């Protein structure tokens, strides 16, 4: 709905001030909001990696010279330049998703929506994609990550939890994962690290609230142990 593939029955979506209900805005909106889908096999159009990255640019009517430059630049960004001539079916799942991300990036969108883009990947592929996402976030790209993996949700600055079509929680990961009752109600669970930190705090171990990663927790506990 964010990129006008679906139009709201009621209410409105404004992308950069453009109303998605107005069909004249459709293409401008889709260029601004890129989408990466769940199944890597079903979103790659080209029979060669570079051809696929160029697909969106071809649709936008970008001149050839500029197209070459952008294809190269974005394949480098996701670390897939060496595979530019490869046929996509010989790539691993993680590599295919990285190609898909490069294809979206090449269109220079202002934000990218990733719709469970890692859910069909193996742990290695997930890690590859997450690394790229962290890097893009640092480069200032707005990312909207749709996921049901809590470890992945930790990457976000802001979390929104939907249940039965309604927003039930939103805020920073720390805020959201503190609400264990509500999460359970939505059949979700805070990541193990957060739960362990919470359990320790409940037993009056003085841990700060910000802990989200394994390393942070281990470091904090070691500091505590020394100070006691």
């Amino acid at each position, binding site marked *: 709905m964010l990129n006008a593939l679906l139009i709201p029955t009621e209410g409105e979506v404004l992308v950069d001030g453009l109303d998605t209900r107005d069909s004249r805005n459709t293409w401008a909106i889709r260029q601004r909001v890129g989408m990466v889908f*769940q199944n890597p096999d079903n979103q790659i159009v080209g029979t060669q990696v570079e051809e696929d990255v160029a697909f969106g640019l071809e649709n936008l009517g970008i001149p050839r010279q500029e197209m070459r430059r952008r294809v190269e630049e974005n394949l480098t960004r996701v670390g897939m330049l060496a595979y530019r001539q490869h046929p996509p079916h010989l790539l*691993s*799942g993680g590599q295919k998703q990285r190609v898909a991300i490069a294809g979206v990036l090449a269109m220079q969108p202002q934000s990218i929506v990733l719709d469970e883009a890692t*859910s*069909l990947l*193996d*742990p*290695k*592929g997930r890690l590859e994609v997450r690394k790229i996402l962290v890097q893009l976030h640092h480069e200032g790209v707005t990312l909207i990550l749709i996921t*049901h993996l809590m*470890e992945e949700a930790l990457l976000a600055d802001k979390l929104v939890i939907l249940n039965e079509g309604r927003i039930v929680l939103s805020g920073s990961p720390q805020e959201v994962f503190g609400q264990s009752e509500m999460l359970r109600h939505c*059949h*979700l*669970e805070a*990541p*193990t*690290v957060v*739960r*362990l930190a919470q*359990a*320790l705090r*409940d*037993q009056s*171990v003085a841990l700060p609230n910000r802990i989200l990663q*394994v*390393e942070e*927790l*281990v470091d904090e*506990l*070691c500091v*505590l*142990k020394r100070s*006691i």
Partner: protein
Amino acid sequence: MRIEAKHLTYIYGPGLPWEKRALSDVSFSIESGEFIGLIGETGSGKSTLVQILNGLLRPTEGTILLDGSDISNRKVDLHRIRAQVGLVFQFPEQQLFAETVADDVAFGPKNLGVPKEEIGKRVDEALLKVGLRPQSLRDRSPFTLSGGEKRLVSIAGVLAMRPKVLILDEVTAGLDPKGKKEILARIQLLHRVEKATIILVSHDMDEIALLSQRILILKEGKLILEGSPVEIFTRAQDVRSAGLDLPTLPRILSDLRCRGFQLPTAIFEVGEAARWIRKELFRAAD
């Protein structure tokens, strides 16, 4: 059913330029009623191994004994083996094809030549085993079901053949947390109540650690680690070298142990872990 694998080797395209060794010299045994976790990276040979166990591939070298009889022998009827060792492929819902759920579940037993009167009974029994209600589902089209239900129906399709061993390849892939939990609970019931031998194949350590009694870790076609979850968790380094990672909780505990915490290895639960860590913190204080 007891499974014994001796020196299994499998080579794709032997003698060809693209010859690929998928398994080399893998030996293990699985006792009747055991719950085994088989884990390894993509391309570690997991799928090849389960296809050999199911009789879809014949090992290039080595033997497989099912209850003492050798199935790698060329004379053996592989169809009988496939009935005894049920294999649920990854995304099994993609193999649904019949007009009704009942017909689809009946496909396996029908192919085995089970008499008609018994097939109906087996269909209901299989659907119940996966927690679906036969009355309301039997006549529905499998394509109208939800993702999780489809997957359960396709597992029922394998169970209807009454296998003694059930192999599940990445059975929770692509499901949401609720669907995952449900399916794993069902599998645990099959193991506990039906006493089925279960081999759970996954690259997700969390899932494997939760349910398995014994874990086999494959790397590049070799069996590199084997043991109970507790044994495996004490060898974090070896697990990492196989391109895998421990589940979060054992990883935290293993890291803490490395940094001088004295904690027992057999902790599987967050509350328990918190109690031990607290105790350890205040032991240092005394």
